């Protein structure tokens, strides 16, 4: 019987400590003890993960994919291809080819060339039963990465960086529930918000203008934040799968299938430098001083 009492005491203590941690974490602000502890542990564990990843990955690749058994030169070639593919996608995503140059100016594509992108590999991926979507990449503050930077790959927008250590960075994926991106329909410029739905292959898009035209197969691009953080402009997000128009609602919404295949992320790029501000055409001449993009950050 005394043993039973001891077992119950241990259970009670462990549960209480857990809940105390929860409450401290919820109530504490940035820089508090627990956040510092987490940052410190990430500093230690991320390099360890990277080390284990580097040991384990070639073995895994050997069995899964021969083309992955490559050296740095091939990775550089992949990156070049990724770059070309991305620019190509931006140029060809409009259905009206003849207006391409006109739209390019509108969508800031001309400015995209001067974005500087840091390549990175995905080290760790969060489990799917976590009800949150995040990854760790092997580039950090020593590569010029800070929090709230755009992460993309050849297919399109992946997400934005959250916490950063010297050698690694966490990325909140586009499909995470907390994710909200300012987006516009390619070619028409209608504005709205794309937000994650906790689903691996679907996000929700809300159009500000309820009577604006929104069609299946329309393509969404990021509309860009001030100084390109957290989101740079003109990056493909996804394609409209279906449009829902609910009477009485102020906005029109659509389901979007993201271009990025979030289950097979490997090589990504982080936008570390947006183009000079004067290289960017101003979309709305009347509000050029107020920066219409500013309201978009989350």
């Amino acid at each position, binding site marked *: 019987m005394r*043993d039973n009492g001891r077992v119950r005491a241990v259970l009670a203590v462990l549960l209480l400590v857990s809940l105390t*941690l929860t409450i401290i974490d919820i109530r504490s602000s940035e820089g508090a003890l627990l956040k510092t502890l987490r940052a410190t*542990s990430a500093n230690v564990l991320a390099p360890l993960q990277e080390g284990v990843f580097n040991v384990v990955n070639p073995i895994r690749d050997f069995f899964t994919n021969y083309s992955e058994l490559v050296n740095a030169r091939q990775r550089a070639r992949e990156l070049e291809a990724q770059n070309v593919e991305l620019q190509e996608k931006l140029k060809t995503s409009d259905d009206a080819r003849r207006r391409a140059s006109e739209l390019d100016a509108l969508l800031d594509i001309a400015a995209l060339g001067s974005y500087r992108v840091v390549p990175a590999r995905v080290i760790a991926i969060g489990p799917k039963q976590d009800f949150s979507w995040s990854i760790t990449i092997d580039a950090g503050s020593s590569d010029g990465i800070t929090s709230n930077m755009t992460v993309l790959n050849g297919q399109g927008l992946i997400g934005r960086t959250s916490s950063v250590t010297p050698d690694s960075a966490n990325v909140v994926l586009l499909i995470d529930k907390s994710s909200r991106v300012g987006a516009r329909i390619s070619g028409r410029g209608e504005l709205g918000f794309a937000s994650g739905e906790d689903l691996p292959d679907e996000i929700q898009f809300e159009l500000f203008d309820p009577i604006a035209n929104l069609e299946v197969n329309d393509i969404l691009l990021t509309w860009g934040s001030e100084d390109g953080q957290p989101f740079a402009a003109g990056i493909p997000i996804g394609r409209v799968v279906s449009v829902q128009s609910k009477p009485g609602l102020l906005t029109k919404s659509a389901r979007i299938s993201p271009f990025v295949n979030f289950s097979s992320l490997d090589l990504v790029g982080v936008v570390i430098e947006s183009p000079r501000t004067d290289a960017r055409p101003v979309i709305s001449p009347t509000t050029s001083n107020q920066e219409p993009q500013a309201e978009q950050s989350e």
Partner: protein
Amino acid sequence: MNLLRWLVVILSIFIAVILQPILLTRLNFPGATVDLILVLICAWAIAKGPIVGASAGFIAGLLIDLTPPTEPIMGLNSFALVLIGFVVGLLGVKPSKSFFRPLLIVAFASVVLIMLKAALTSIFESPVAFSRVSELLFTQAIYTSLLAVFVIPLVTWLDRKLGPTSRADELRL
């Protein structure tokens, strides 16, 4: 429970916490990610009873909270895993020669864990869609019980290598 045994328990959980986001999340099976950490906690709980189960769950929860890439609210993972480890330890107390009983316990634990986490996430962060949970439950129950076929004998073997302990010993920490 001597110090060496505790070290082995902690080390095995640490390895699982490091390997899970690197290897297992990349497997891309439909539905949930195979949860090696949970299976390991269950295996220790079945082998060594509720106190070891709850402690293993607590340690695993803290390590998960501190390991990238996830940045959950601290303590919620350990809260759920302490409960799981404790209950599995109680269920495993009855010595059983059955092959399927431990697998059923692990499958049950995985289902409870996902529901607990969905509830805790809904309370502390944002509501979780029911369709997501139901999809995860089914796949996770299958994956974890399959993984338990290998992990439970491994932990039992490891435990035996470390020498005998009486049941009373285990309860006395």
